[in-house]
Every structure is written in structure tokens, then in C-alpha cells.
């Protein structure tokens, strides 16, 4: 595809060239080279007297842009300083590029176009069955429902619209066991589920149910034998997410569905990250319940859906009771604009699924090759392409503190761990379940690639990560020790 700007072409030359350091110093040549007299850092003055290597030039030039602020002198041998790690602000924009698609996605303009009709003219309540405003809105809702159900090869009557995947998960994990609580007392789930599933399961434990949390291997996949062994006579529900939101690993849904159907246990899967991205067929995979989130498929936020099988019928206790809408399972006025947007997003996922899949795979391979070429990095996830969703790349950078790496990456929107747990200081429990120790779990970053990510952004990320990881490692004493060949496990840290 044609790139019209010469500056952009230079960027390509920078990222494609193996000697990134040399090109970076060339691109920084635009920073003025006058040195302010108020600079009090003694080491900078010593560097001015040393030979004119590019590193020293950069530290001189860098001190001008910060004015009176004390400049961090880069360790010897580093090709960049942290200040100059972001590009010249007068030449490029300042808004970070978005690589956190697992947290949420932008609303596709075609979806917005569909929704605007409802915010301007089609404002009727779809449940008003006595006039044309209600009828026309109801017709649109049913069309949307049809699109949503087609993606998973379900019947439109089996789709229930909720306020999000969290509500769908709650509805299913609390509702199904509660309905059958007289005879069934056991729920099975995994250790790497989304917080809402784990929390609802813990809630059911308080209500008297027993919950088994299946362990995962170091790739993130469950062991089917473990599942078979944990199913008891009184198991009512198995809940296993299709694609993990932190590491992108795809569980073997078909085999799990087969095991559950043989043992007459309901199989629920949280398909918030998987819907539309991997092929899901509820009949082939024997799925009885499925949660969908709209804002993960370029749709509006605040809406989700769940699929509840009708043949054989899955009964559940509704959480939200009222006027009996949505088969009595989820009462409340349907948000017609959001539903129409969701339907359009689902239709687009089906239409563009091949194109998006190839594109995301191409970018993901490029990103993985670019990042895993850095020494001492590890890819968290499955090596088998059948069990790994390419749009979610989780990589641990050893001997670096995770928070400082995220701070250094302020011009790229990323996350370490999931968005739900990013407020807490604990490392991700998903990575713990994979067997990673605290340090590695803290220094993992999740890169999300979606429909709207461009190759230029991926190139920028690869170049940026290469620079900053090198910079942070040069500062780290652990890295120095590892370079000297000391085995870190053999060190006796003296406790004071």
C-alpha cells in the first residue's frame, strides 16, 4: 500500500535496518545542540570533555529539551536516554497508539452509522406492541438478534441480550446451579477464568456449592483427563473460557463439550474474547451456554448477550426479574440502539472474518518475531497455532521491572495483566497459574492486535520496545550479574 510521506518512509528505513542505534541518532539530529549553563549535573560536564561519540552527543542534546530539570545520564553503552526515547514532539503527534484490544475496541464507523438512526428517529420502545414506533424498533431488534445468533450457528430465540459479558456470566453461573440446587451441588471451572466467573463461583461456594478449580499446564491449557476425573454425579456446570483474555490461549472446546455431553453436565463457555474471532459452533461443540460481549467486537459498550440452549432446555433462575422480557430470563427494556449496533458488529465480524484473520495473523507474526529476538524474553501462551489466538501476544521480559517498563512505554497504550486487575498491585493470577514466578509475572506485557492496527504501529512498537528494554536492562544490576555469568538462584541475598 502506498505511503505518501517521506518522513513515514524514513520510519520504515529505521525499523527495517538492523542497526537501530545508528539510525536513531540520525533522527535525533534535529534536537538543537546548545547546552544550558544551569545544568548542575557533574557527570554531563565530564561527558562533554570525552570523545564525541554519538551517545554523548545525545546526552548533550537531550539536556536542552529538559531545561532546568536534572537529566538522567544514560549508563555507558546505552544508545538512548529515556527523554529522547519518545520522538520529537514538533514533528509527530503525542497521543499514544492503541494496542490494548483485549481491554476494549474502538467502535467501527459502520456500527456507529447504524446506531445513529436510533438516536435520531427510531426511538420507540421495542416492547410497545400497540404502535408503529414500537413495531419498527422491534423489527430492528429481531434483525440484530438474527445476526448475533448466526455467528455461533444458534437459533435467534436462544439469544438473550444483557448488559455485558459480566452480567451474562453471573446469570449463568449463579442461575443454573440455583435452579438445580435440590439435587446438584458441584461446579467445575479453571484457575485462569475471568474475575467475574471466579467471583461468581466463590459466591456459589458461600451458598453451599462445591467448586473445583482445574489447574492449567505451562501453556495455559487444561488437561482433559483432569476434567474427566473431576466430574461427579452431582456436577451441574462446567465453565471454561474459550479464549483467555490475558494470554490468548484457546481451550479445546470440542473435546470438552463431548465429555460434558456424555456425562450430562451443562457446558458454559465465556466467549467474550473468542466470539467472531475463532469459529464457534454451539451444536458441534455441544455448548449449552455462552457469554458474548459487544465492546470486544468493535460494537458499543454497555451491551452483551448470552446464548442459552433450548433443545435440550437449559433452565435457570433469573437474576433480574420484572416484566418478563427476553423469555423471562432477563427483564428490562431492551436498549435498541446498542442492540442494533451489536447486530451490525456481529454481521461485520462474519463478513470480514477471513480478511481480519489473515491480517491479524500477519501482524502478530511480525510482532512476535520482532520482540522475541530480544534476549531473555519469553512468550506466554501456546506454541501450537491451533490453540493460540494470534491477536493476543503476551511476552515476559526478564530482568526488568514491569512497572518501569510500562512507564517507559507511555506512548503506547498497553497493559500488563488484564484491565480488571490492573488497579491492584498483585501480579496476574493467570500467569501464576501458568507457573511463572512473581518477577516474571510482574514484567509481562500483553499486546493486542485488532482490525484497525496498522503495520506502521507494529513497526513503531518493535523499535520502541527494543530501545527501552535495552535501556532499562543497562540500568539493572541483575542484568549485569547475569551478563557476567552469575546464576541468580545461587545468590544468598543477605537479609538485614
Amino acid at each position, binding site marked *: *500500500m502506498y505511503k505518501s*510521506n*517521506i*518522513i*513515514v518512509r524514513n*520510519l520504515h528505513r529505521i525499523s527495517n535496518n538492523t542497526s537501530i542505534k545508528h539510525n536513531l541518532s540520525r533522527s535525533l539530529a534535529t534536537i538543537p545542540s546548545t547546552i544550558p549553563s544551569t545544568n548542575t549535573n557533574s557527570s554531563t560536564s565530564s561527558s562533554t570533555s570525552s570523545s564525541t561519540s554519538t551517545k554523548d552527543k545525545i546526552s548533550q542534546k537531550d539536556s536542552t529539551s529538559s531545561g532546568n530539570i536534572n537529566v538522567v545520564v544514560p549508563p555507558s553503552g546505552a544508545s538512548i536516554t529515556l527523554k529522547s526515547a*519518545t*520522538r520529537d514532539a*514538533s*514533528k*509527530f*503527534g*503525542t*497521543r*499514544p*497508539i*492503541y494496542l490494548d484490544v483485549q481491554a476494549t475496541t*474502538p467502535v467501527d*464507523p*459502520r456500527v*456507529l*452509522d447504524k446506531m445513529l438512526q436510533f438516536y435520531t428517529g427510531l426511538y420507540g420502545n421495542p416492547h410497545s406492541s400497540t404502535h408503529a414506533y414500537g413495531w419498527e424498533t422491534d423489527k430492528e431488534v429481531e434483525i440484530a438478534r438474527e445476526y448475533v445468533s448466526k455467528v455461533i450457528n444458534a437459533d435467534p430465540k436462544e439469544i438473550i441480550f444483557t448488559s455485558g459479558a459480566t452480567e451474562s456470566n453471573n446469570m449463568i453461573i449463579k442461575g443454573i446451579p440455583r435452579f438445580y440446587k435440590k439435587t446438584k451441588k458441584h461446579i467445575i471451572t479453571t484457575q485462569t477464568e475471568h474475575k467475574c466467573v471466579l467471583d461468581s463461583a466463590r459466591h456459589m461456594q458461600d451458598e453451599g456449592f462445591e467448586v473445583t478449580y482445574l489447574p492449567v499446564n505451562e501453556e495455559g491449557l487444561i488437561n482433559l483427563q483432569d476434567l474427566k476425573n473431576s466430574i461427579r454425579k452431582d456436577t451441574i456446570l462446567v465453565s471454561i473460557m474459550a479464549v483467555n483474555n490475558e494470554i490468548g490461549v484457546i481451550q479445546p472446546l470440542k473435546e470438552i463439550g463431548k465429555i460434558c455431553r456424555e456425562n450430562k453436565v451443562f457446558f458454559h463457555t465465556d466467549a467474550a474474547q473468542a466470539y467472531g474471532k475463532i469459529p464457534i459452533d454451539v451444536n458441534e461443540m455441544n455448548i449449552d451456554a455462552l457469554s458474548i460481549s459487544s465492546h470486544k467486537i468493535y460494537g458499543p459498550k454497555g451491551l452483551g448477550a448470552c446464548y442459552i440452549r433450548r433443545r435440550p432446555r437449559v433452565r435457570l433462575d433469573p437474576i433480574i426479574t420484572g416484566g418478563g422480557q427476553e423469555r423471562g430470563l432477563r427483564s428490562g427494556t431492551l436498549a435498541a440502539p446498542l442492540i442494533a449496533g451489536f447486530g451490525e458488529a456481529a454481521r461485520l465480524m462474519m463478513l470480514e472474518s477471513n*480478511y481480519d484473520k489473515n491480517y491479524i495473523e500477519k501482524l502478530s507474526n511480525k510482532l512476535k518475531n520482532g520482540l522475541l529476538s530480544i534476549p531473555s524474553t519469553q512468550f506466554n501462551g501456546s506454541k501450537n497455532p491451533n490453540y493460540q489466538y494470534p491477536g493476543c501476544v503476551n511476552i515476559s521480559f526478564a530482568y526488568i521491572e514491569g512497572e518501569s517498563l510500562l512507564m517507559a512505554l507511555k*506512548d*503506547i497504550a498497553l497493559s500488563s495483566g488484564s484491565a480488571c486487575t490492573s488497579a491492584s498491585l498483585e501480579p496476574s493470577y493467570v500467569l501464576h497459574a501458568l507457573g511463572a514466578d512473581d518477577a516474571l509475572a510482574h514484567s509481562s506485557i500483553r499486546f493486542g492486535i485488532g*482490525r*484497525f*492496527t*496498522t503495520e*506502521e*504501529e507494529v513497526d*513503531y512498537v518493535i523499535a520502541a520496545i527494543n530501545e527501552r528494554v535495552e535501556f532499562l536492562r543497562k540500568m539493572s544490576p541483575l542484568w549485569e550479574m547475569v551478563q557476567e555469568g552469575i546464576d541468580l538462584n545461587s545468590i544468598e541475598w543477605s537479609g538485614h
Partner: protein
Amino acid sequence: MVQQKQVLKLYKNLLEKAYKFDNYNFREYAKRRIHDSFKEHKSLTKPEEIAQFYNNGINNLALLTRQSTISQMYTFDKLVVEPLKQHK
């Protein structure tokens, strides 16, 4: 009967509207998608298929016009990969 000239005019109009998106990601996606979908359907021969593709294109042109106008009403800062000035 849809002529080649009409198809090329539609292509040019679609690309012109795609350039007007304020959001970098949508702009690049629109350009790429238009380019790739026209290339993919380059070798269609049946007139009904060509007519259907052309009508699809007309609808998408209307959609693009609306959405690119809306995107220019709500603008945000430029991204770090977007150069600020066009000319040297």
C-alpha cells in the same frame, strides 16, 4: 450495465472520502480495505455480480461520507505515528 469508467470513478470517490477521516486507525483501515476489496473483485465477469458489487460500493460511499464528516466534527490529538506536517 456497469462500465469500467464508473467503477474507477467509484474507487476514486471512496478513496477520497477515506482520506478525510480524522482518526488515524479508521483512515488507514478504510484505505486498506477499499484497496484490497477492489483488488479481490478485480476479475469478476458476470454483470449481475459486478452490479451487486457496484451497488454495495455506492452504499458504502454514502456511509463513508457521513462517517468521515462526523469524524471531523469530533477531533482529537494526532497519534505518535502520525507526522504533523504534510510538506517538508
